[in-house]
Each structure stands twice: as structure tokens, then as C-alpha cells.
């Protein structure tokens, strides 16, 4: 049965490609193709999970076998075509014209096609996921949530808004800076401002999202409110990428790489955005209500406050190398901003802001998040981008580590070190290493997907946001030993 469903799904995909190339009848092809793919995925999922089977290491696709490499290659190729050679996709794009016309009244673009396929994947693989975790309400609600946000906020609303307010740029409410690094680009800000009240409202909302809304939500729930309940990248990883979640590397070496890489990307995103905004602001009020100087003072103030908060108040929460990195970046940014205030140079960071913007867009926006992040799902797991590259995840992660109520608690002495939790952690956290010592898990990278808790055979892990106290619980002996109640073990040494 599984084979029949695989063939059905592949037929759908191939028919899309072949009919695109042959420019055959449009809406029929699309309907046929998407029906086949839907049936294929859901049918396969049903056959696979009806007896709660998992067995990821007995399937070539989910254990880096031949089919995994083929899929990875195809995905990478697709992303390269999409980002850099979209003219080759032209015949397929045309198939989507009627759908696009119905939604926004415009012909389809490659981004519309991508949006359709992306949303479609999240929805059908979401159904598969809902079935797989049918006994777990946390997983069910979370998955319905990402399906909803993807379909309504990322796919449907922006298209409808484009129809109603033609001059408002494509805006996905839930896509927050710095994940959408282009949010404060000159042309976008101009369009927002020039389209009146709604546009300005959206722009203000986007700033509030960064500085007010997201920290409050992260304080209350941890970064999961975004990464595994709302975000589109997370949505794809959790649904279509679920088959590959165990492929994330759990070694300490990779953890070290992750800490550096993700924060370097964040630093890059900040510098790039500051440079871009600086480049289109003026030193008088002729164009915008904010002058260059005001903006720079604002950045300087935020920079100073953050440095004080991170290096002074929350000193004990951060490792030495992290503090050094933050200090270095703070000095660099502060230095350039002061230079900007004093000399008013044309280019704030010596380079043209456009050069910075373009290289960020190419290296991070396209290569990292697209080609590597998604193309390599079958090889490196589903959260490569979220773990190593996403600047938004980096910010939320810092908040999670420093002031959130969120933690994963372990249940006394019940851990049997079986390793299911670590294996299925898509973020590469070695959950077991904490659980088998009876420690709570507080890691900035944890997206709170809750799968560790779902796969634990002994009921050891629980995601909680009840209170910030006891976060750094580090017991001596584990619960179940009378001596664990006497905390004098080490003192008597």
C-alpha cells in the first residue's frame, strides 16, 4: 500500500512538471496534480503511522540513504532555479496564473508558485503529522496553529491585501524583522508610508513586534510561541521536515559552531539594516519624520542599554566567550554609529549599504535559508536554518535563556537514558544529558516543539511556563535516593 501511495504522490509532482513544460491545459492539470500529491502524502502517512510505527532508521529516505540524497539534490536544484534562474520555471509558473488571478488579480510570479507549494506542503504534511501524533493534544494544537498561520497570514491575507490595497507591499504579519530582513528597505518603507493610515499602522506594528510584542510573548511562553506555533520556516520543518528531524547533529562541536554562526548572522542582519535605513534617511525632515541623527541616537541608546543588560545584569547567564562576542559587537556598532553622528558619512559602514544588503540577501536570505536550510533537509535534518542561521531565533533564544518562564522539566528519577529525546530533537540538543542527571533543560535554541516529551517512553519530560524560579535546578543525586534530599554530599568532600 505504501508503494501505491508513493507512486500516486510522485505522479502528481511529475504531472505538474511535465504539463508545465508542455504548456497543457492549466486548471485541470493543477487540480489533478495537487489531488494526487495530497492523496499520496496522506495515504502514505496513514499506512506508516496507523500502528504507531516510526522506524526512521529502517527507511532509506529518512536515514541518509540513496533516495535521501536524490531528494536533497532535487530540492537544492529547485531552490537554485527559484532564486537565481526563475525563467526556467516559467512554464510551471504559468500553470498557476488562474489561481493567482482569482486571489490577487495578478498573474503568477515565481514567489506565488513557491508560496503555493510551500503552503500546500505544510497543509498536507500537517495532516500526516496530526495523524501521527493523534494521542497528543499539544502536538495537535501546535500543528493546527502553524497550518492556520501559514495558510491565512502568509498565503491568503497578503494576496487579498494586494487586491484591496494595490500599493501596500506584500506583508506577512507574522514575519518579523530580522527574519524578514527586507522589512525596512527604502522602497518598502516608502510604499508603507505613501499608502496612508493602514501602511503606517503596519509599519508601526512591525516595530512593536520586534521590541514589545515578541519579548512579552517569549517571557510568557518561551520562543516556541513563534518558532513552533507561528513561524513559516518552523511550520515547514515540523510538517514536511518531520521525517528528517532525527538527522540533526548532537555533538558538542556542532553546538559550538551553532552558537557562533547564528549570532554572527544576527550581527550581520543588524549592521545591514542599520546601514540600509541610514542610507535613505535624510539629515532634515524633508522626507521622513525621523532624521538620520535621531535614528543613530536611537540605535546608540538601544546598543548601550542592551550591553548594560547583557554584560552587567545578566552576566551570570552568559558564558565568557558569549560576553566577549557581545562586547566586541557592541563596540563595533557603537563606534560606527558615533562616527556616523560626527562625520555624517555617505556610507555608515564604509561599504555601500546596497552591497551589504545584496550580500546578505544572497548569502543568508537565499543560500542559507533556502538552498542549505531546506534543500538539505534529508541530510542535516529539518532545522538547519533555524538552528544555525535564523537571526530571529537568535534574538528569541537570548530572551528565552535570560528571562523567560519557559523550561523543560524532568520527572524526578524516571529517566532511563534511552536516547529517544535527543535523537528526535530537531535542534540537536542532547536532551538526555540533562534528563539523566535530573536537570531542567534551558537552552536558547529550544523551539519547544515538545517532541522530546512526546517520544519519551517513561513520561520524563514536560514543557512548562509556570514560573521562572528553579530554572537552574541541578540536583545532586536523582530523586528516589534518600540522600538526594540531604544536599550536603559535596560539602563533606
Amino acid at each position, binding site marked *: 500500500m505504501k508503494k501505491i501511495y508513493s507512486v500516486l504522490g510522485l505522479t502528481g509532482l511529475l504531472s505538474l512538471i511535465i504539463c508545465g513544460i508542455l504548456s497543457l491545459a492549466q486548471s485541470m492539470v493543477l487540480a489533478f496534480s495537487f489531488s494526487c500529491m495530497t492523496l499520496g502524502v496522506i495515504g502514505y502517512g496513514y499506512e506508516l503511522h496507523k500502528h504507531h510505527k516510526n522506524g526512521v532508521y529502517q527507511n532509506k529516505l529518512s536515514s541518509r540513504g540513496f533516495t535521501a540524497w536524490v531528494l536533497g539534490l532535487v530540492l537544492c536544484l529547485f531552490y537554485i532555479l527559484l532564486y537565481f534562474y526563475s525563467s526556467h520555471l516559467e512554464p510551471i509558473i504559468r500553470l498557476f496564473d488562474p489561481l493567482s488571478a482569482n486571489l490577487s488579480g495578478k498573474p503568477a510570479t515565481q514567489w506565488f508558485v513557491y508560496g503555493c507549494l510551500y503552503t500546500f506542503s505544510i497543509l498536507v504534511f500537517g495532516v500526516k503529522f496530526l495523524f501521527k501524533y493523534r494521542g497528543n493534544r499539544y502536538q495537535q494544537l501546535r500543528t493546527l496553529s502553524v497550518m492556520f498561520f501559514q495558510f491565512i497570514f502568509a498565503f491568503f491575507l497578503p494576496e487579498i491585501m494586494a487586491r484591496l490595497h494595490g500599493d501596500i507591499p506584500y506583508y506577512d504579519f507574522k514575519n518579523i524583522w530580522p527574519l524578514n530582513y527586507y522589512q525596512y528597505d527604502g522602497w518598502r518603507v516608502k510604499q508603507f508610508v505613501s499608502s496612508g493610515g493602514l501602511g503606517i499602522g503596519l509599519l508601526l506594528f512591525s516595530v512593536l513586534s520586534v521590541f514589545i510584542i515578541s519579548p512579552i510573548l517569549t517571557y510568557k511562553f518561551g520562543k516556541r510561541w513563534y518558532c513552533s506555533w507561528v513561524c513559516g520556516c518552523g511550520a515547514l520543518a515540523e510538517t514536511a521536515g518531520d521525517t528528517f528531524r532525527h538527522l540533526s547533529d548532537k555533538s558538542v562541536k556542532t553546538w559550538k559552531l551553532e552558537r557562533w554562526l547564528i549570532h554572527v548572522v544576527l550581527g550581520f542582519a543588524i549592521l545591514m539594516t542599520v546601514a540600509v535605513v541610514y542610507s535613505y534617511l535624510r539629515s532634515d525632515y524633508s522626507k521622513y519624520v525621523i532624521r538620520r541623527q535621531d535614528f543613530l541616537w536611537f540605535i546608540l541608546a538601544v546598543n548601550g542599554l542592551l550591553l548594560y543588560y547583557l554584560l552587567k545584569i545578566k552576566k551570570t547567564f552568559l558564558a565568557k566567550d558569549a560576553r566577549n562576542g557581545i562586547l566586541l559587537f557592541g563596540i563595533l556598532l557603537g563606534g560606527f554609529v558615533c562616527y556616523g553622528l560626527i562625520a555624517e558619512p555617505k556610507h555608515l559602514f564604509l561599504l555601500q549599504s546596497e552591497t551589504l544588503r545584496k550580500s546578505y540577501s544572497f548569502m543568508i536570505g537565499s543560500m542559507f535559508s533556502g538552498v542549505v536550510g531546506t534543500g538539505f533537509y534529508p541530510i542535516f535534518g529539518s532545522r538547519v536554518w533555524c538552528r544555525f542561521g535564523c537571526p530571529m531565533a537568535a534574538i528569541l533564544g537570548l530572551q528565552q535563556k535570560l528571562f523567560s518562564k519557559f523550561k523543560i522539566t524532568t520527572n524526578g528519577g524516571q529517566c532511563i537514558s534511552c536516547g529517544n529525546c535527543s*535523537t528526535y530533537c530537531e535542534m540537536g540538543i542532547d536532551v*538526555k*544529558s540533562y534528563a539523566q542527571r535530573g536537570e531542567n533543560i534551558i537552552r536558547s535554541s529550544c523551539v519547544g516543539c515538545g517532541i522530546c516529551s512526546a517520544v519519551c517512553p517513561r513520561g520524563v519530560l514536560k514543557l512548562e511556563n509556570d514560573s521562572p524560579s528553579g530554572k537552574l535546578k541541578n540536583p545532586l543525586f536523582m530523586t528516589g535516593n534518600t540522600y538526594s534530599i540531604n544536599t550536603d*554530599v559535596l560539602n563533606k568532600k
Partner: protein
Amino acid sequence: MKKLVIIGNGIAGSTLARWVRKLSEFEIEMISDESPLFYSRTALMYIFMGDVKLQDTYGYPQEFFEKNNIKLINARAEHIDVTQKVIQLKKENTEFETSYDYLVIATGSKPTFYNWPNQNAKGVQGFYHLDDLHTLEENAKNAKNAVLLGGGLIGIELAEMLQRRNINTHFLIREKWYWNGVLPNSDAELLTSYISKECPGLALETNLKKIEVNAQNEVIGVTTDTGQSITCDLVGIATGVSPNIDWLKETPIETDKGVLINPHFETNVKDVFAIGDCAQHKNPPQDRRPIEAVWYTGRIMGETLARNLCVESSVYAPGPWFNSAKFFELEYQTYGLVSSDLMKKENEIHFQCVLDSIHHKWITIALDRENNTFLGINSFGIRLRHEVFEQWLIEKKTTDFIVNNMTKAFFNPEFFKNYSRDIQMAYNRYKDEKNI
């Protein structure tokens, strides 16, 4: 500098090594011929089912032992000279030895076979060691039908594993219900009805009589004491485990079923200790068995012996009993003592509350009929908080208190139904019925 040698790198030995390193500067050597690194025995089934890989089940990576200066020796301990304080080791064909100041025996268990005819045939095996996993891979490769024997935790693991590979499984159990030597009959009955759905080949009150073999000494079937003949190409024996101590026979270390120890884990020989499955307590703590072949007790013994060796004289003092298991998809946890019907204490009564019969969720609370003291709880399909129950058991809370405070004790993932009202109402009805 004292030198500690630990024979066996399971949960007991590895826990001991980790804590001795934390608490002392001892030189530490850990010997095992089973696996170069400490792995989780209870996770062998997940390797077979393709859910995890062997290295995922390692408690600590290789670097952990290097960093902490715990020397791992991959060899078999053959003999101990307790007067010279020397252990003879063998790896493949090389023999060598190592000396000790303190020696700890933590060699775990081995499967018990009960001398069935042809029990050494090809295709007949137990399931305990890493080697058994490799053997099972071989045996299961072309197997179509399997017979399992023994209604314990390893038996049910095997049933799940073989069914995952689409092997038709006959699961023979001596008792009337699965695990009713441990669980009260009412729990065993519900559990058995769940298991029979997951494993249709479950056969109760059935014993193995004889294993049938062909000319090549390969298993071809079994005969049961109910007169049934079953064709099969694999026989899994899971009729229990016993301490793995045969190799100590030639030493003066005193043994019975296991290595005999006092509450400080000391054997009759000075500076030789035993912990974990292979140890047999001469004076076990109250309500405890002399031999406890359980993951958690192995760990507690390891922790306590480390304290005993490095901090101050300490005796085995586990807190209230707890355990957990998983039967196919059904999770089980227990805190305190809910006795089986045979072992019931005076005044012990059981309040069973089925919370969701479709999804198999229920609890059973054991209480004292006279003074309402809470004795223990079994929970199926519901996760409960260990710390909370430990504290309640130590404080000897009443059952009324427990039932009214269940919300504090749930450990289910968020958005799961809170069953505390259902439990309270059912408990009040139960009290009315029983006049307590």
C-alpha cells in the same frame, strides 16, 4: 592514591564511576566486555525497531570518560585474586591483569532458561545483552513466526519488536493475566485486554513444553502444555533474569543467587563491593526484595556506594519505591507500593478508576482501609510527577489528601485533560460503596 576498579559498565557501574570522580581523586578503571561504552539496556528495543541507533543510547560520549579520567577497559574479567587484590582479564586471546584497592562487582544479570528440551537450538534466544540484539537481528531476518515465553517486561518488549517487523508472534504467558505477579488482578486484567489487541497471538495460562528442531538443530516449532503445536522459526525466552555471577564461583566471595552484601554494599571480602542487578542484600530495606533487577535501583546503589566510599559511611537507603514501563503505546508509572493480590498487606485495599476506556487510561490507588493512609499508585496512560509522590509518601499523606490534590501531581503534556475531578468523584463513590 586509591585505585577503584569497577567490573561492569551498566547503569550501576557507570553511575558509581561518575560520582566517585565528582567526589574524589581516586584512580578509576571500568571493565566491560559487552560494550566499550555504557549504553542504555532498556533502549535495545528501540535500536531493533529502527527508532534510535546504538550510539544514541550511550549514556555519555567517549570524551566524557577521557575528560573525567575514567579508564575504560574492554575485556572480560575472568578471575579475582582477593589476597593479592588482582583481577585477571582476557581480551580475545590476550590475558592481562589489573590491581585494585577497592573492587566493585556490577555485572548485572543474564537471562534465565529453565532447561526446556532443545533450548540451545539455533533460533532460541534470550534478550538482555548487546549480543542478544545482534543474534535477534540474525534470527529475525527470515523469520515469519515467533514464539515468546514469559509474561514480564522483556517479553512485552520482544512482542512489540517482532510485530514491528511483521513477524507473526505467539506470546505465551504462564499466568492468568499478564504481569499479575506484580500488578493487582484488576490492573492486570485491563492491561491484558489492551495487550491482546496489540498482540493477537497472546496465549494465557500456557507453558512451553518442548522446542522442536530439525536435523540442523534449527528451531521449527514448539509444543505447549495445552497440547498445542506452533510452527515457528524463532523462540524468545523472557522468563526472567538472574545475577550474572557464575564467574565468581572460584573466588572466596560469598554468593547465593547474587553476590551477598550488607547495607554498605560490602561483601564478605574486604574492599570488595557489589551493586546493581548482581547484588543480593542480606538485609534489604523494609518492603524491598533482596535482589532488585531494576534500572533505577542500580543507579541508586551506584550513587550511594560513591557516597559510602568518598564522603562518609552510607547505607543503601532508597526513597519510596517507583518504577515505569511501556507496554506497546501504553505508558505505566508507579509510586509507592500497590501490591498484587497475592502479596496484599493487611488492610490494603485498591481503588481503581478508569478515566478513559477507549484510550486506555486508568489509575489504581492502594490505601489502608483503617486509617486512609496512601500506600501507592499505579497509573496507565497518565504521567505523574515523581517528586510530588515521593514527598507525599514520605509524609504518609492520607488518600483523601492525595485525591484532592491530584492536580499538583499530573505531569502530562500541556492541554491534556485534567482528570482530577473525575478521580475525586469516583473516589467518593468508592468510599460510599465500601463504607470507609
